[in-house]
């Protein structure tokens, strides 16, 4: 118990406000990226603001062993040691980019070293912007500066409120790689979003909210496979496979990814990821079919051997969901019940998964 408390952000909050009721009791792991998702009005931002101390709900919040809110005691925002990236540009317009960064540096509880600062400025590629004024930056540049500024205050946890939602598609693609780099910085991140792409690409843990309540809280793939996961109502369930780029075929513009925890490889369109980089691959359940032997005369390039772990019901009565184990990772396949019957599929048997389409995230 004490161990889990140390490594979690513990939240137990109730807030009633003009017909809206937020009621959350959750443990957020203090490692990796936790995505809070759900439709607008679900209370995601309110929850994040409560964690930051920008809003006050009834209840308790503790960061590891330290209480941020308990009974009448309430640690104010500036003493929580958090970083916060707001939805829209939040740079101080009376200060240059460099002065904005310096503002955070000056007030950091533990000042990052000059070397760390330089490394961060280069990591976020904002060195050319330092002398500029925030009003002259593009939306994407502003969010990169805001992210750098939040990190320079050396936060114990980074809170991000839909940092990409005010940007157009091209700008989003420009920023996502920088957000992925957060993983290397070893700061726990809580990331509010409603975009499934951002979840699949960034999240390690997912908390789905609806009407002020948490409906699903699970590791990424468990959430993506969860029938109650709200995004599964609008898109099909799928999984995110982790792996490492192990070969690049320049001639056909394909790259092979070796899946973590197994020797299986997936060939996908080469998207410019260098050799040995860690990548994520999104595979939808509907794009996976099952055969009992590896076919060699198919256009499908990716056929991998896996163990059928279980068969569950689908929302549609004609369909079934197959949970497949590939090394230590999971794959979902959606097939008709009749196919399950005809192939005599049962838990524990070895099958071949044909992956019709998979995309690098």
């Amino acid at each position, binding site marked *: 118990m004490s161990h889990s408390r140390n490594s979690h952000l513990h939240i137990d909050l109730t807030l009633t406000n003009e017909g809206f009721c937020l009621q959350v009791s959750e443990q957020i792991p203090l490692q990796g990226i936790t995505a809070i998702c759900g439709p607008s009005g679900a209370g995601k931002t309110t929850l994040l603001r409560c964690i*930051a*101390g*920008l809003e006050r709900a009834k209840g308790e919040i503790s960061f590891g062993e330290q209480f941020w809110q308990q009974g009448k005691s309430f640690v*104010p*925002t*500036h003493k929580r*040691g*958090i*970083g*916060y990236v*707001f939805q829209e540009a*939040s740079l*101080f*317009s*009376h200060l240059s980019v460099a002065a904005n960064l310096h*503002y*955070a540096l000056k*007030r*950091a*509880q533990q000042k990052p070293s000059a070397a760390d600062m330089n490394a961060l400025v280069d990591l976020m590629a904002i060195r050319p912007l330092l002398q500029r004024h925030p*009003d002259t930056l593009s939306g994407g540049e502003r969010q990169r500066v805001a992210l750098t*500024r*939040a990190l320079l*205050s050396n936060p114990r946890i980074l*809170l991000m409120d839909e940092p990409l939602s005010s940007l157009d598609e091209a700008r989003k693609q420009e920023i996502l790689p920088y957000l992925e780099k957060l993983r290397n910085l070893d700061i726990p991140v809580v990331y509010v979003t409603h975009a499934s792409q951002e979840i699949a690409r960034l999240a390690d843990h997912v908390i789905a909210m609806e009407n002020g309540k948490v409906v699903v809280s699970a590791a990424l793939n468990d959430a993506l496979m969860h029938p109650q996961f709200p995004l599964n109502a609008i898109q099909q369930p799928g999984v995110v496979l982790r792996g490492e780029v192990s070969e690049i075929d320049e001639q056909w513009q394909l790259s092979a990814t070796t899946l973590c925890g197994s020797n299986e490889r997936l060939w996908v369109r080469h998207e410019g990821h260098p050799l040995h980089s860690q990548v994520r691959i999104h595979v939808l359940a509907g794009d996976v079919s099952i055969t009992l032997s590896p076919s060699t005369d198919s256009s499908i390039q990716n056929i991998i051997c896996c163990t059928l772990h279980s068969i569950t019901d689908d929302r549609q009565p004609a369909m079934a969901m197959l949970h497949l184990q590939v090394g230590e990772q999971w794959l979902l396949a959606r097939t008709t019940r009749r196919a399950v019957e005809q192939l005599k599929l049962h838990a524990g048997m070895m099958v071949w998964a044909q992956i019709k389409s998979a995309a690098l995230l």
Partner: protein
Amino acid sequence: MTFSPADITAIWLTLKLATLVTLLLLLIATPLAWWLANTHSRLKVPVSALVALPLVLPPSVLGFYLLIAMGPQGPIGQLTQAMGLGTLPFTFTGLVIASIFYSLPFVVQPIQNALEALGKRPAEVAATLGAGPWDRFFSVILPLTRPGFMTATVLGFAHTIGEFGVVLMIGGNIPGETRVVSVQIYDHVEALQYGQAHSLALAMLALSFVLLLLTYGSRRAQVRVL
């Protein structure tokens, strides 16, 4: 254009009064404006109305009530007497207090407007970066609302210089103590000293114009910088 020693005394007194009142008003109006800009209290509307009253009330009415309140029988008068300060009417201190009431809306409203236009976000951002409340005010809110504070300062100063009715009611006409420029001009006109009245009036006109010129000038400069 020549000023008599009495004119000089009046000008000096007026500037002293306006400077002191403006400084005190900035101290009083800033927290008041901040509260008005941020509160959801039901008191917001009545307090706003009270603050704005001097805008519409005849100065003589305001001066009359202040005279009663500060007089020997009034609540403020009783308090000051109990503290051994005597009564405030017909003193410079009384004039300062009356002017604070009289010019309050001219200082509160520009600051309140600037704070409302700024919104809570910059202060929230500063808090997430580790800035405490005072730090937030001086490092973020004040620089971002500077035009509002400039306007408030100039309007408070100029309006205090221009007051007449309240001064007559509360201060009377004591040279060096309560006889400010506007009263001095009135006295000159009463005595048919139009030349002297002209000099003072022109000085007031020029000062007011220059003050407003500086405010609008600085505002434009600020816009250009941004």
